[in-house]
Protein backbone atom coordinates (compact mmCIF):
# COMPACT_ATOMS: atom_id res chain seq x y z
CA UNK A 1 0.00 0.00 0.00
CA UNK A 2 2.84 2.36 0.91
CA UNK A 3 4.50 1.67 -2.43
CA UNK A 4 1.24 2.34 -4.28
CA UNK A 5 0.65 5.66 -2.49
CA UNK A 6 4.24 6.83 -2.99
CA UNK A 7 4.21 5.95 -6.68
CA UNK A 8 0.79 7.53 -7.14
CA UNK A 9 2.04 10.74 -5.50
CA UNK A 10 5.09 10.66 -7.78
CA UNK A 11 2.67 10.40 -10.72
CA UNK A 12 0.72 13.43 -9.48
CA UNK A 13 3.97 15.36 -9.14
CA UNK A 14 4.90 14.53 -12.73
CA UNK A 15 1.44 15.54 -13.92
CA UNK A 16 1.83 18.91 -12.21
CA UNK A 17 5.23 19.41 -13.81
CA UNK A 18 3.68 18.53 -17.14
CA UNK A 19 0.74 20.93 -16.79
CA UNK A 20 2.67 23.88 -15.39
CA UNK A 21 6.45 23.95 -15.93
CA UNK A 22 6.42 22.27 -19.32
CA UNK A 23 4.00 24.90 -20.64
CA UNK A 24 7.00 27.28 -20.50
CA UNK A 25 8.51 25.40 -23.45
CA UNK A 26 8.96 27.71 -26.45
CA UNK A 27 7.00 25.32 -28.66
CA UNK A 28 4.13 24.38 -26.44
CA UNK A 29 2.88 21.66 -28.71
CA UNK A 30 6.11 19.73 -28.59
CA UNK A 31 6.86 18.83 -25.01
CA UNK A 32 7.82 15.54 -23.40
CA UNK A 33 5.18 13.31 -21.88
CA UNK A 34 6.56 12.59 -18.41
CA UNK A 35 3.65 10.36 -17.43
CA UNK A 36 4.20 8.05 -20.41
CA UNK A 37 7.86 7.67 -19.44
CA UNK A 38 6.82 6.96 -15.85
CA UNK A 39 4.28 4.35 -16.97
CA UNK A 40 6.89 2.56 -19.08
CA UNK A 41 9.35 2.69 -16.20
CA UNK A 42 6.75 1.14 -13.88
CA UNK A 43 6.29 -1.69 -16.36
CA UNK A 44 10.00 -2.55 -16.24
CA UNK A 45 10.40 -2.56 -12.51
CA UNK A 46 7.08 -3.30 -10.86
CA UNK A 47 4.80 -6.33 -10.79
CA UNK A 48 1.77 -6.39 -13.08
CA UNK A 49 -0.87 -5.98 -10.35
CA UNK A 50 0.53 -2.92 -8.62
CA UNK A 51 1.95 -1.42 -11.80
CA UNK A 52 -1.19 -2.14 -13.85
CA UNK A 53 -3.44 -0.26 -11.44
CA UNK A 54 -0.94 2.59 -11.24
CA UNK A 55 -0.71 2.78 -15.04
CA UNK A 56 -4.50 2.92 -15.22
CA UNK A 57 -4.57 5.78 -12.72
CA UNK A 58 -1.80 7.65 -14.53
CA UNK A 59 -3.99 7.52 -17.64
CA UNK A 60 -7.04 8.52 -15.62
CA UNK A 61 -5.20 11.59 -14.32
CA UNK A 62 -4.23 12.54 -17.87
CA UNK A 63 -7.87 12.25 -18.93
CA UNK A 64 -9.03 14.31 -16.00
CA UNK A 65 -6.85 17.31 -16.78
CA UNK A 66 -6.98 17.18 -20.55
CA UNK A 67 -9.55 18.40 -23.04
CA UNK A 68 -10.03 14.81 -24.11
CA UNK A 69 -13.63 14.02 -23.24
CA UNK A 70 -13.50 10.29 -23.89
CA UNK A 71 -11.03 8.94 -21.37
CA UNK A 72 -8.64 7.59 -23.97
CA UNK A 73 -5.53 7.65 -21.84
CA UNK A 74 -6.87 5.32 -19.12
CA UNK A 75 -7.01 2.64 -21.81
CA UNK A 76 -3.90 3.57 -23.80
CA UNK A 77 -1.64 3.78 -20.73
CA UNK A 78 -2.89 0.43 -19.41
CA UNK A 79 -2.20 -1.16 -22.78
CA UNK A 80 1.25 0.47 -22.91
CA UNK A 81 2.03 -0.91 -19.45
CA UNK A 82 1.07 -4.50 -20.22
CA UNK A 83 2.73 -4.41 -23.63
CA UNK A 84 5.96 -3.34 -21.91
CA UNK A 85 5.49 -6.06 -19.28
CA UNK A 86 5.20 -8.56 -22.10
CA UNK A 87 8.34 -7.26 -23.79
CA UNK A 88 10.50 -6.59 -20.76
CA UNK A 89 12.01 -10.08 -20.63
CA UNK A 90 13.39 -9.53 -24.12
CA UNK A 91 15.08 -6.19 -23.40
CA UNK A 92 17.33 -4.53 -20.86
CA UNK A 93 16.43 -1.08 -19.65
CA UNK A 94 20.12 -0.17 -19.43
CA UNK A 95 21.67 1.78 -22.27
CA UNK A 96 20.69 5.23 -23.49
CA UNK A 97 20.02 4.21 -27.06
CA UNK A 98 17.59 1.48 -26.00
CA UNK A 99 15.80 3.76 -23.53
CA UNK A 100 15.40 6.41 -26.19
CA UNK A 101 14.20 4.04 -28.91
CA UNK A 102 11.83 2.23 -26.59
CA UNK A 103 10.08 5.38 -25.37
CA UNK A 104 10.11 6.89 -28.86
CA UNK A 105 8.43 3.79 -30.29
CA UNK A 106 5.79 3.66 -27.56
CA UNK A 107 5.02 7.34 -27.94
CA UNK A 108 4.38 6.82 -31.65
CA UNK A 109 2.33 3.68 -31.03
CA UNK A 110 0.21 5.51 -28.47
CA UNK A 111 -0.41 8.32 -30.97
CA UNK A 112 -1.59 5.72 -33.48
CA UNK A 113 -3.84 4.08 -30.90
CA UNK A 114 -5.39 7.45 -30.02
CA UNK A 115 -6.15 8.02 -33.69
CA UNK A 116 -7.80 4.63 -34.02
CA UNK A 117 -9.91 5.21 -30.89
CA UNK A 118 -10.98 8.71 -31.88
CA UNK A 119 -11.79 7.50 -35.38
CA UNK A 120 -14.00 4.78 -33.90
CA UNK A 121 -15.71 6.86 -31.25
CA UNK A 122 -15.83 10.35 -32.73
CA UNK A 123 -15.42 10.15 -36.50
CA UNK A 124 -16.45 13.80 -36.89
CA UNK A 125 -13.51 15.02 -34.83
CA UNK A 126 -11.05 12.59 -36.39
CA UNK A 127 -10.24 14.83 -39.35
CA UNK A 128 -8.97 17.63 -37.13
CA UNK A 129 -7.01 15.41 -34.81
CA UNK A 130 -5.22 13.29 -37.35
CA UNK A 131 -3.72 16.29 -39.14
CA UNK A 132 -2.13 17.59 -35.97
CA UNK A 133 -1.07 14.12 -34.88
CA UNK A 134 0.67 13.53 -38.17
CA UNK A 135 2.37 16.90 -38.04
CA UNK A 136 3.59 16.70 -34.47
CA UNK A 137 3.81 13.03 -33.60
CA UNK A 138 7.43 12.54 -34.67
CA UNK A 139 8.94 15.61 -32.98
CA UNK A 140 6.77 15.05 -29.90
CA UNK A 141 7.87 11.41 -29.63
CA UNK A 142 11.49 12.39 -30.22
CA UNK A 143 11.24 14.91 -27.39
CA UNK A 144 9.67 12.32 -25.07
CA UNK A 145 12.43 9.85 -25.99
CA UNK A 146 15.10 12.40 -25.11
CA UNK A 147 13.43 13.20 -21.80
CA UNK A 148 13.45 9.49 -20.98
CA UNK A 149 17.27 9.56 -20.99
CA UNK A 150 17.13 12.03 -18.13
CA UNK A 151 14.14 10.62 -16.31
CA UNK A 152 14.92 6.89 -16.25
CA UNK A 153 18.10 7.33 -14.14
CA UNK A 154 16.22 9.78 -11.90
CA UNK A 155 13.36 7.32 -11.42
CA UNK A 156 15.86 4.56 -10.66
CA UNK A 157 17.57 6.72 -8.08
CA UNK A 158 14.25 7.75 -6.55
CA UNK A 159 12.99 4.18 -6.43
CA UNK A 160 16.11 2.90 -4.72
CA UNK A 161 15.91 5.68 -2.13
CA UNK A 162 12.18 5.54 -1.39
CA UNK A 163 11.33 1.94 -2.07
CA UNK A 164 14.23 -0.36 -1.17
CA UNK A 165 13.65 -3.75 -2.83
CA UNK A 166 13.79 -6.70 -0.44
CA UNK A 167 15.06 -8.96 -3.24
CA UNK A 168 18.06 -6.71 -3.80
CA UNK A 169 18.97 -7.04 -0.14
CA UNK A 170 18.86 -10.82 -0.38
CA UNK A 171 21.05 -10.75 -3.45
CA UNK A 172 23.55 -8.53 -1.71
CA UNK A 173 23.66 -10.86 1.23
CA UNK A 174 23.99 -13.91 -0.99
Amino acid at each position, binding site marked *: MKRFVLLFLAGILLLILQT*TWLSLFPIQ*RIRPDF*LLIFTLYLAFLFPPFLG*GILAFFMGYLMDLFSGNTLGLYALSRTIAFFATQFLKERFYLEGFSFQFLFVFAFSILEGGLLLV*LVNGLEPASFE*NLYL*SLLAFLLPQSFCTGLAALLLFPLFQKGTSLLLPQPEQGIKAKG
Partner: protein
Amino acid sequence: MRIRDFFLSRRYNLFIFITLLLLFALVLMSLRAKQRKGVELFDAFLMEICSPLQKGSTFIIRTVQGTFQKYIFLVNLEKENRRLRQRIAELQEENNRAKEMKLAMDRLKNLLQFRQENSQTVIGAEVIGQDPSSWFKSVTIDKGERDGVKKGMAVISAAGVIGQILKTAPHYATVLLITDYNSAIDSIVQRTRAKAIVEGNGENQCQLKYLLRSEEVAVGDAVVTSGLAGNFPKGLMVGEVKKVDKKGHGVFQYAELVPSVDLTKLEEVFVVMEPIPPPPPPKEEKVKKGKKTKK
Protein backbone atom coordinates in the same frame (compact mmCIF):
# COMPACT_ATOMS: atom_id res chain seq x y z
CA MET B 1 -7.15 -31.59 -11.59
CA ARG B 2 -5.16 -29.88 -14.31
CA ILE B 3 -8.03 -27.51 -15.04
CA ARG B 4 -8.26 -26.66 -11.34
CA ASP B 5 -4.52 -25.97 -11.22
CA PHE B 6 -4.81 -23.74 -14.25
CA PHE B 7 -7.63 -21.72 -12.67
CA LEU B 8 -5.68 -21.28 -9.47
CA SER B 9 -2.43 -20.46 -11.20
CA ARG B 10 -0.84 -17.05 -10.99
CA ARG B 11 -0.76 -16.75 -14.75
CA TYR B 12 -4.53 -17.23 -14.95
CA ASN B 13 -5.10 -14.60 -12.23
CA LEU B 14 -2.90 -12.19 -14.12
CA PHE B 15 -4.82 -12.80 -17.31
CA ILE B 16 -8.12 -12.09 -15.52
CA PHE B 17 -6.64 -8.98 -13.94
CA ILE B 18 -5.44 -7.58 -17.28
CA THR B 19 -8.76 -8.33 -18.94
CA LEU B 20 -10.71 -6.71 -16.11
CA LEU B 21 -8.55 -3.59 -16.08
CA LEU B 22 -8.82 -3.15 -19.83
CA LEU B 23 -12.55 -3.83 -19.73
CA PHE B 24 -12.95 -1.27 -16.98
CA ALA B 25 -11.08 1.32 -19.07
CA LEU B 26 -13.28 0.50 -22.07
CA VAL B 27 -16.50 0.75 -20.05
CA LEU B 28 -15.34 4.08 -18.64
CA MET B 29 -14.60 5.30 -22.14
CA SER B 30 -17.96 4.22 -23.53
CA LEU B 31 -19.72 5.89 -20.57
CA ARG B 32 -17.89 9.11 -21.27
CA ALA B 33 -18.59 8.85 -24.99
CA LYS B 34 -22.30 8.34 -24.39
CA GLN B 35 -23.01 10.68 -21.53
CA ARG B 36 -20.11 13.10 -21.90
CA LYS B 37 -19.26 12.71 -18.24
CA GLY B 38 -17.02 10.56 -16.12
CA VAL B 39 -17.24 9.30 -12.57
CA GLU B 40 -18.01 12.78 -11.35
CA LEU B 41 -17.43 12.35 -7.63
CA PHE B 42 -14.12 10.58 -8.15
CA ASP B 43 -13.06 13.08 -10.82
CA ALA B 44 -13.84 15.95 -8.48
CA PHE B 45 -11.92 14.28 -5.64
CA LEU B 46 -8.79 13.77 -7.76
CA MET B 47 -9.04 17.29 -9.13
CA GLU B 48 -9.29 18.71 -5.60
CA ILE B 49 -6.09 16.86 -4.66
CA CYS B 50 -4.07 17.84 -7.72
CA SER B 51 -5.22 21.39 -8.42
CA PRO B 52 -3.87 23.07 -5.24
CA LEU B 53 -0.46 21.67 -6.15
CA GLN B 54 -0.90 22.98 -9.69
CA LYS B 55 -1.85 26.36 -8.26
CA GLY B 56 1.26 26.41 -6.07
CA SER B 57 3.46 25.39 -8.98
CA THR B 58 1.99 28.12 -11.21
CA PHE B 59 2.55 30.66 -8.43
CA ILE B 60 6.23 29.68 -8.22
CA ILE B 61 6.60 29.91 -12.01
CA ARG B 62 5.07 33.39 -12.10
CA THR B 63 7.18 34.60 -9.18
CA VAL B 64 10.38 33.34 -10.82
CA GLN B 65 9.36 34.80 -14.19
CA GLY B 66 8.51 38.12 -12.53
CA THR B 67 11.88 38.28 -10.79
CA PHE B 68 13.68 37.67 -14.06
CA GLN B 69 11.62 40.20 -15.94
CA LYS B 70 11.90 42.90 -13.26
CA TYR B 71 15.52 42.65 -12.18
CA ILE B 72 17.69 40.47 -14.33
CA PHE B 73 16.72 41.42 -17.85
CA LEU B 74 17.31 45.16 -17.27
CA VAL B 75 19.94 45.72 -19.95
CA ASN B 76 20.26 48.61 -22.39
CA LEU B 77 18.19 50.76 -20.07
CA GLU B 78 19.33 54.18 -21.27
CA LYS B 79 18.65 53.41 -24.90
CA GLU B 80 15.23 52.12 -24.04
CA ASN B 81 14.57 55.18 -21.88
CA ARG B 82 15.14 57.54 -24.80
CA ARG B 83 12.95 55.47 -27.04
CA LEU B 84 10.22 55.40 -24.43
CA ARG B 85 10.26 59.21 -23.98
CA GLN B 86 9.66 59.59 -27.67
CA ARG B 87 6.93 57.01 -27.49
CA ILE B 88 5.26 58.89 -24.60
CA ALA B 89 4.97 62.01 -26.75
CA GLU B 90 3.38 59.96 -29.52
CA LEU B 91 1.03 58.27 -27.12
CA GLN B 92 -0.09 61.55 -25.59
CA GLU B 93 -1.23 62.69 -28.98
CA GLU B 94 -2.89 59.35 -29.56
CA ASN B 95 -4.51 59.56 -26.15
CA ASN B 96 -6.23 62.83 -27.01
CA ARG B 97 -7.65 61.31 -30.13
CA ALA B 98 -8.72 58.22 -28.20
CA LYS B 99 -10.56 60.36 -25.63
CA GLU B 100 -12.58 61.94 -28.40
CA MET B 101 -13.35 58.53 -29.81
CA LYS B 102 -14.33 57.20 -26.40
CA LEU B 103 -16.83 59.98 -25.88
CA ALA B 104 -18.38 59.22 -29.24
CA MET B 105 -18.44 55.51 -28.45
CA ASP B 106 -20.13 56.06 -25.08
CA ARG B 107 -22.87 58.00 -26.76
CA LEU B 108 -23.35 55.25 -29.33
CA LYS B 109 -23.39 52.60 -26.63
CA ASN B 110 -26.17 54.37 -24.78
CA LEU B 111 -28.11 54.68 -27.96
CA LEU B 112 -27.81 51.03 -28.88
CA GLN B 113 -28.62 49.88 -25.33
CA PHE B 114 -26.27 46.98 -25.00
CA ARG B 115 -28.70 44.91 -22.98
CA GLN B 116 -26.45 41.88 -22.80
CA GLU B 117 -23.51 43.74 -21.32
CA ASN B 118 -25.63 44.91 -18.42
CA SER B 119 -27.44 41.67 -17.71
CA GLN B 120 -24.59 39.16 -17.78
CA THR B 121 -22.49 38.54 -14.69
CA VAL B 122 -18.98 37.25 -14.90
CA ILE B 123 -16.45 36.05 -12.34
CA GLY B 124 -12.70 36.23 -12.72
CA ALA B 125 -10.58 33.09 -12.49
CA GLU B 126 -6.90 32.35 -12.66
CA VAL B 127 -5.44 29.78 -15.03
CA ILE B 128 -3.47 27.32 -12.91
CA GLY B 129 -2.57 24.58 -15.37
CA GLN B 130 -2.37 23.57 -19.01
CA ASP B 131 -3.47 20.39 -20.75
CA PRO B 132 -1.10 17.53 -19.85
CA SER B 133 -1.33 16.02 -23.33
CA SER B 134 -0.14 17.66 -26.50
CA TRP B 135 -3.12 16.60 -28.59
CA PHE B 136 -5.95 18.24 -26.69
CA LYS B 137 -6.44 21.87 -25.69
CA SER B 138 -7.69 22.76 -22.22
CA VAL B 139 -6.70 24.71 -19.12
CA THR B 140 -7.53 24.35 -15.44
CA ILE B 141 -8.93 27.36 -13.56
CA ASP B 142 -9.20 28.06 -9.83
CA LYS B 143 -12.98 28.49 -9.72
CA GLY B 144 -15.44 25.61 -9.43
CA GLU B 145 -18.94 24.55 -8.43
CA ARG B 146 -18.73 26.39 -5.09
CA ASP B 147 -18.27 29.62 -7.02
CA GLY B 148 -21.29 28.84 -9.19
CA VAL B 149 -19.34 27.51 -12.16
CA LYS B 150 -21.24 24.88 -14.15
CA LYS B 151 -20.48 22.68 -17.13
CA GLY B 152 -21.06 24.44 -20.45
CA MET B 153 -20.59 28.00 -19.15
CA ALA B 154 -18.74 30.36 -21.45
CA VAL B 155 -15.21 31.45 -20.64
CA ILE B 156 -14.07 34.76 -22.09
CA SER B 157 -11.44 37.46 -21.73
CA ALA B 158 -11.39 41.13 -22.60
CA ALA B 159 -10.00 40.20 -26.03
CA GLY B 160 -12.67 37.63 -26.85
CA VAL B 161 -13.84 34.06 -26.50
CA ILE B 162 -11.62 31.47 -24.79
CA GLY B 163 -13.79 28.37 -24.50
CA GLN B 164 -16.32 26.68 -22.26
CA ILE B 165 -16.37 24.75 -18.99
CA LEU B 166 -15.81 21.04 -19.61
CA LYS B 167 -15.46 19.49 -16.14
CA THR B 168 -16.05 20.89 -12.68
CA ALA B 169 -14.84 20.12 -9.17
CA PRO B 170 -15.88 22.03 -6.01
CA HIS B 171 -13.07 24.58 -6.31
CA TYR B 172 -11.62 23.99 -9.77
CA ALA B 173 -12.78 23.50 -13.33
CA THR B 174 -11.38 22.47 -16.71
CA VAL B 175 -11.97 24.77 -19.67
CA LEU B 176 -12.15 23.34 -23.19
CA LEU B 177 -10.41 25.92 -25.40
CA ILE B 178 -11.92 26.99 -28.73
CA THR B 179 -8.88 25.55 -30.48
CA ASP B 180 -9.57 22.00 -29.25
CA TYR B 181 -10.85 19.67 -31.93
CA ASN B 182 -13.95 18.98 -29.79
CA SER B 183 -14.99 22.63 -29.58
CA ALA B 184 -17.72 24.18 -31.76
CA ILE B 185 -19.22 27.68 -31.40
CA ASP B 186 -22.09 29.24 -33.33
CA SER B 187 -20.72 32.42 -34.90
CA ILE B 188 -21.24 35.09 -37.55
CA VAL B 189 -18.88 37.03 -39.78
CA GLN B 190 -19.15 40.58 -38.44
CA ARG B 191 -19.07 42.40 -41.77
CA THR B 192 -21.40 40.23 -43.86
CA ARG B 193 -23.43 38.56 -41.02
CA ALA B 194 -22.76 35.18 -42.65
CA LYS B 195 -23.43 32.31 -40.23
CA ALA B 196 -20.85 29.62 -39.53
CA ILE B 197 -19.61 27.24 -36.88
CA VAL B 198 -16.15 27.89 -35.46
CA GLU B 199 -14.40 24.59 -34.79
CA GLY B 200 -10.98 24.07 -33.26
CA ASN B 201 -8.40 22.28 -35.32
CA GLY B 202 -6.07 21.29 -32.53
CA GLU B 203 -3.43 23.89 -33.41
CA ASN B 204 -3.67 27.46 -32.21
CA GLN B 205 -6.16 28.01 -34.98
CA CYS B 206 -9.81 27.36 -35.77
CA GLN B 207 -11.77 26.75 -38.91
CA LEU B 208 -15.09 28.11 -40.11
CA LYS B 209 -17.44 25.31 -41.00
CA TYR B 210 -20.81 25.33 -42.75
CA LEU B 211 -20.08 28.73 -44.25
CA LEU B 212 -22.15 28.97 -47.42
CA ARG B 213 -20.20 29.33 -50.64
CA SER B 214 -22.51 32.17 -51.68
CA GLU B 215 -21.44 34.25 -48.66
CA GLU B 216 -18.73 36.82 -49.19
CA VAL B 217 -15.89 36.39 -46.70
CA ALA B 218 -12.46 37.99 -46.99
CA VAL B 219 -9.14 37.65 -45.21
CA GLY B 220 -9.10 39.95 -42.18
CA ASP B 221 -12.86 39.75 -41.53
CA ALA B 222 -13.74 39.59 -37.84
CA VAL B 223 -15.83 36.67 -36.61
CA VAL B 224 -18.04 37.15 -33.55
CA THR B 225 -20.35 34.92 -31.52
CA SER B 226 -23.92 34.74 -32.75
CA GLY B 227 -25.44 34.39 -29.27
CA LEU B 228 -27.65 31.58 -30.56
CA ALA B 229 -26.07 28.75 -28.58
CA GLY B 230 -27.21 30.33 -25.30
CA ASN B 231 -24.02 30.15 -23.27
CA PHE B 232 -22.01 32.73 -25.22
CA PRO B 233 -23.11 36.37 -25.23
CA LYS B 234 -23.75 37.79 -28.69
CA GLY B 235 -21.07 39.85 -30.41
CA LEU B 236 -17.99 38.58 -28.62
CA MET B 237 -14.88 38.56 -30.76
CA VAL B 238 -13.82 35.01 -31.70
CA GLY B 239 -11.06 35.76 -34.19
CA GLU B 240 -10.00 37.01 -37.58
CA VAL B 241 -10.24 35.18 -40.90
CA LYS B 242 -6.77 34.20 -42.04
CA LYS B 243 -7.46 32.17 -45.14
CA VAL B 244 -10.45 31.59 -47.41
CA ASP B 245 -10.68 28.68 -49.79
CA LYS B 246 -13.53 28.43 -52.29
CA LYS B 247 -11.84 25.77 -54.40
CA GLY B 248 -13.48 22.41 -54.83
CA HIS B 249 -17.12 21.52 -55.00
CA GLY B 250 -19.94 21.59 -52.51
CA VAL B 251 -22.32 23.97 -50.81
CA PHE B 252 -19.81 25.31 -48.31
CA GLN B 253 -16.53 27.18 -48.48
CA TYR B 254 -13.59 26.69 -46.14
CA ALA B 255 -11.98 29.39 -44.01
CA GLU B 256 -9.30 29.44 -41.35
CA LEU B 257 -9.47 31.65 -38.30
CA VAL B 258 -6.87 33.01 -35.89
CA PRO B 259 -8.38 33.37 -32.38
CA SER B 260 -8.42 36.92 -31.02
CA VAL B 261 -7.00 35.68 -27.72
CA ASP B 262 -3.51 34.22 -27.48
CA LEU B 263 -4.53 30.93 -25.91
CA THR B 264 -0.94 29.90 -25.24
CA LYS B 265 -0.44 32.74 -22.77
CA LEU B 266 -3.63 32.67 -20.74
CA GLU B 267 -3.36 33.91 -17.16
CA GLU B 268 -6.73 35.34 -16.11
CA VAL B 269 -10.14 34.58 -17.60
CA PHE B 270 -13.80 35.41 -16.96
CA VAL B 271 -16.58 32.84 -16.60
CA VAL B 272 -19.98 34.04 -17.80
CA MET B 273 -22.34 32.99 -15.02
CA GLU B 274 -25.77 33.78 -16.39
CA PRO B 275 -27.05 31.85 -19.35
CA ILE B 276 -27.82 34.27 -22.13
CA PRO B 277 -31.42 33.98 -23.34
CA PRO B 278 -31.81 33.48 -27.07
CA PRO B 279 -32.22 36.82 -28.83
CA PRO B 280 -35.79 37.88 -29.69
CA PRO B 281 -36.76 37.87 -33.37
CA PRO B 282 -35.64 41.03 -35.18
CA LYS B 283 -38.02 43.97 -34.89
CA GLU B 284 -38.03 44.59 -38.64
CA GLU B 285 -39.76 41.29 -39.30
CA LYS B 286 -42.43 42.08 -36.74
CA VAL B 287 -43.10 45.42 -38.45
CA LYS B 288 -43.29 43.71 -41.82
CA LYS B 289 -45.66 41.10 -40.48
CA GLY B 290 -47.77 43.81 -38.88
CA LYS B 291 -47.97 45.63 -42.18
CA LYS B 292 -48.96 42.46 -43.95
CA THR B 293 -51.80 41.76 -41.54
CA LYS B 294 -53.03 45.32 -41.90
CA LYS B 295 -53.17 44.92 -45.63
